[in-house]
C-alpha cells in the first residue's frame, strides 16, 4: 500500500502519440497502475526514440490485437477490473473497434472513459483531421504570438503537452466524483477548445474593444521595459520584465544609469512604454558585456524579474532542475544511467513519485493476461500463436 494519491487506481491506456501518453504518465508517476495496450501492427509513434523514455515512464505495456474478436474480449475483461480507460484516436475509431463508452460501461458500469480528439466528438467538424501544431493556428492560440506585423509563427510544441496535463486533470476530477457518488463518466475532450480556453484576454479584448489583438513579440501591453537583451555569445539573451516603479529604480542602479532613474519621462510604466526603444538600447549597452546567467544574477540581487533565454539543452543543464530533483537518474535497458524529467509538483512530506524506465511492447503480457485476467499459460500461448497477443 503506497501513500501516493492514485494508489489503487488502474488505467487502461489505449492512447498514443503525445497528449494521451502525457496524461497517463502523470497518473503513473502519482501511483496509478497504467497498462498501456499496444498494437504490433500500428505501433505508437511515441514509442520510438528518446521521447519514449519521457512519455511512457512508469507504465506497464502489454501487446494485443484489439481488432480481433478475442482481443476485444480481453480488453473488455481488462476494463472490467479497471477504473479509467483513455484513448485519443480520431473520432469514430474507438466505436468501430467495439469499445464505445456503451461497451466499456457494460464491462464496468462505473468506468471513467476519457476520449480526446482534435475538435471534440460531436459537431459539424468532428471528423477534421488534426495535428496539434495545426490546431494552434485554428484556435487563435498562435494569432497573439509572434513579432508585430510578421508572418504567423510555427508555434512550437504546445497543444499536445498542454492537453496532456489537462486530460490528467479531468480524470482526477472524475475520480473525485466517482468516490463521492459511485458514478462513472464519459468525457468528451476537444484539444481545440483547450487551446482557445488559453487565450481569454484576447477573446475579451475583442468583445470589449472591437479589435483583433495583435502579437506583441516580447513586449507587454502594460509593463516596460519588457523584452530580451543581447548578452555575450551567439544567440544569448537575458529576459527582463519591469513590473513596477521600484523595479525600474533597481534596474537603473544595476545598469549604472542614475540619469534614467531621475528622468521624469520614465517615472511610470506609460512613459517607459512610450520610450521603450531608447530604454532597450540603454539596457543592451549593459547586458551586451555580460554572460546571460551573470546578468540574471546581478538583476535578481536587486529584485528585477529576469532570466536567461535558454534552448532546451541549456534548460536540461539548469542547476535549479537538478538541485530540486526534477531531473532523475534512471537506469535504462541499454545499461546507461539517463537523466530524465520528473513532475512539476511536490507533495511535501509525501512519498516520492514513481519513476521507472519506459517498458517495451509486450513486456507485461504475463502480468496482464495471466495474473490479472487469469488466463492459463497454455491459453496465453495459443493467443500468441494466433497473433492476438503479440
Amino acid at each position, binding site marked *: 500500500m503506497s501513500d501516493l494519491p492514485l494508489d489503487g487506481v488502474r488505467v487502461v491506456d489505449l492512447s498514443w502519440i503525445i497528449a494521451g501518453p502525457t496524461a497517463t504518465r502523470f497518473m503513473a508517476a502519482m501511483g496509478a497502475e497504467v497498462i498501456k495496450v499496444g498494437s504490433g501492427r500500428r505501433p505508437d509513434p511515441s514509442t520510438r526514440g528518446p521521447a519514449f523514455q519521457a512519455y511512457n515512464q512508469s507504465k506497464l505495456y502489454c501487446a494485443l490485437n484489439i481488432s480481433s474478436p478475442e482481443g476485444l474480449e480481453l480488453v473488455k475483461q481488462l476494463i472490467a477490473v479497471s477504473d479509467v480507460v483513455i484513448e485519443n484516436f480520431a473520432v469514430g475509431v474507438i466505436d468501430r473497434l467495439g469499445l464505445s463508452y456503451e461497451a466499456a460501461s457494460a464491462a464496468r458500469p462505473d468506468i471513467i472513459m476519457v476520449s480526446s480528439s482534435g475538435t471534440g466528438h460531436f459537431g459539424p467538424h468532428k471528423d477534421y483531421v488534426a495535428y496539434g501544431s495545426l490546431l494552434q493556428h485554428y484556435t487563435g492560440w498562435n494569432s497573439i504570438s509572434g513579432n508585430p506585423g510578421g508572418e504567423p509563427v510555427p508555434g512550437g510544441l504546445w497543444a499536445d503537452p498542454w492537453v496532456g496535463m489537462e486530460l490528467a486533470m479531468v480524470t482526477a476530477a472524475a475520480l473525485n466524483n466517482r468516490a463521492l457518488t459511485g458514478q462513472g463518466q464519459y468525457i468528451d475532450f476537444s484539444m481545440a477548445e483547450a487551446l482557445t480556453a488559453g487565450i481569454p484576454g484576447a477573446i475579451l479584448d475583442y468583445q470589449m*474593444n472591437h479589435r483583433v489583438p495583435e502579437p506583441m513579440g516580447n513586449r507587454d501591453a502594460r509593463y516596460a521595459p519588457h523584452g530580451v537583451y543581447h548578452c555575450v555569445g551567439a544567440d544569448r539573451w537575458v529576459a527582463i520584465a519591469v513590473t513596477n516603479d521600484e523595479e525600474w529604480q533597481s534596474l537603473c542602479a544595476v545598469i549604472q544609469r542614475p540619469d534614467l532613474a531621475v528622468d521624469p519621462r520614465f517615472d511610470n510604466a506609460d512613459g517607459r512604454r512610450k520610450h521603450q526603444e531608447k530604454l532597450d538600447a540603454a539596457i543592451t549597452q549593459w547586458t551586451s558585456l555580460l554572460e546571460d546567467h551573470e546578468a540574471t544574477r546581478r538583476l535578481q540581487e536587486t529584485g528585477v524579474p529576469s532570466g536567461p533565454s535558454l534552448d532546451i539543452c541549456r534548460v536540461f543543464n539548469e542547476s535549479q532542475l537538478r538541485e530540486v530533483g526534477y531531473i532523475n537518474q534512471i537506469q535504462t535497458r541499454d545499461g546507461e544511467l539517463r537523466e530524465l524529467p520528473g513532475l512539476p509538483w511536490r507533495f511535501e512530506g509525501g512519498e516520492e513519485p514513481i519513476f521507472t524506465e519506459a517498458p517495451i511492447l509486450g513486456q507485461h503480457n504475463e502480468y496482464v493476461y495471466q495474473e490479472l485476467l487469469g488466463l492459463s499459460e497454455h491459453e496465453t500461448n495459443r493467443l500468441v500463436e494466433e497473433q492476438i497477443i503479440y
Partner: protein
Amino acid sequence: MVAGLLPGVRILDVGQGISAPYCAKILAQMGAEVIKVEPLEGDEARRMGPFPSDSPHPEKSGLFLAMNANKYGVSLDLASPDGAEAFKGLAAGADIVVENPPPGSLEAHGLGYETLKTINPGLIFTSVTPFGNRGPYKYFKATDLVLYHMSGHAHGLLGAVENPDSNPPIRAGGHQAELVGGMAAATATLMALYRKRITGKGCRIDISSFEAMVNQLISGLANCAYGRPAPPRDARKVEEAAAAGMVSAIGGILPCNDGYVAISPREDVQWERWLGVMDNPAWATEERYSTRDARQKNSPALWKLLSEWSSNYSKHEIARWGQEQRIPCFPVNTVLDLFNDDQLAHREFFVEIEHPAAGALKYPGAAYKFSNTGLPLAARPAPLLGEHNESILEKLE
C-alpha cells in the same frame, strides 16, 4: 442549479494575478464552492486589463473577470488581527487553500500551512510560485516573460530565422506560463483531494511554474538525456539538419487571399490527395518533389510553389477542400474567426455571463463535457470587490 463534480468541496483562493486564480477557476467550474480572498485594494488582476475602451476600472478587467467567474469574493486585510482571525475561520471550514505569494508571505502573517493545519488537519494547501519553495532560484522574481524564456519555449516558438542575433527568441501571447502553473496546480490538487477522500489526509503541495513549463518539453529533455543537440534557431543549420534527416514533419502555413492556412500533408497518401486538391500541378511529377524525403530536402522551393497556388483562394476554402480529402489542414484563425466558427458554436463552447459592471460577455468555457454531470460554467460572474463580505464573513461569527 448544476451540481458539478465536486459538490460540497470548499476552496479558498488567496491567489492574485493568474496562476493560482486559474487553478481555483478550474475547480470552480468543476463544481467546487470557491471563495476568493482579496486584499482590501483588490487582486492585481483587476489592474491587468484588457479594459473596455482601454480605461482601467477595477471591476472591468478582462483577465480578472475570466479568471474569477463562478467564485464568491471577500476582501480581508490579512495583516490585521481581525482579518487574520476571519481568514482562520474560513480556513477551518475549507478543504483546499490555493495561494501564489512570493515565498513565505502568507507565513509572514502567521497564516502559513503549519498554522492552518493545526486548525484543520485535513487541509490541502497548494502554493504556486515561479520556482517553487525550493532550489537556488527559490527567491528569484519571475514573470510570464521570464518563465517562457527560461524554460526553453521561446527558442522553439519562432522557428528558424536567418539571423538569430538580430531576431531574438520571443514569448507566446496570453500568459501561457502562468496558465500552465495554474493547470499543474489544479491537477495535483485534484489528485490530493482524491487521496483525501480515501485516506482523510491533507498535505501541502508546492508547484513550480518553471517546472510546469519545462515539463511541457519532456521529449526535448529526453533527447538531451540521449546526447542529442537542441534544434537550431539558425536557418542555415536547419537545412543541414534536414539534409541529415533530422526534421521529419512537412508542414507550415501558406498565404491566402484573406490570411493564411496551415497544412501538413506529411504522409505520402496525404500528399497524393493534396495534389488532387491543387488539381495535380505539372511540377509535382519532378523528381525533387516525388518522395517524402525529396520534398523535405527541397521544402523551400516546394513551399514557394504551394504559396503561388494558395494565394488565389481564401483560407476557409482551402481548409474545407483539404479536410474533405482528409488532409490535416486548418485556417489560421484570429479571435474574430472563433466567434464565427460552426464547431465551437455547435458545441456551445463560449458561455455568456452578465456582470453588473462589465455587462454581458462571452467567456471561453470548458474543453470537456462529462456525460453524467453538468458543469456550472455560468453560475455567477466574477465577484465585485468585497461582494460577499456580509453574507460569508458574518456567518463566521
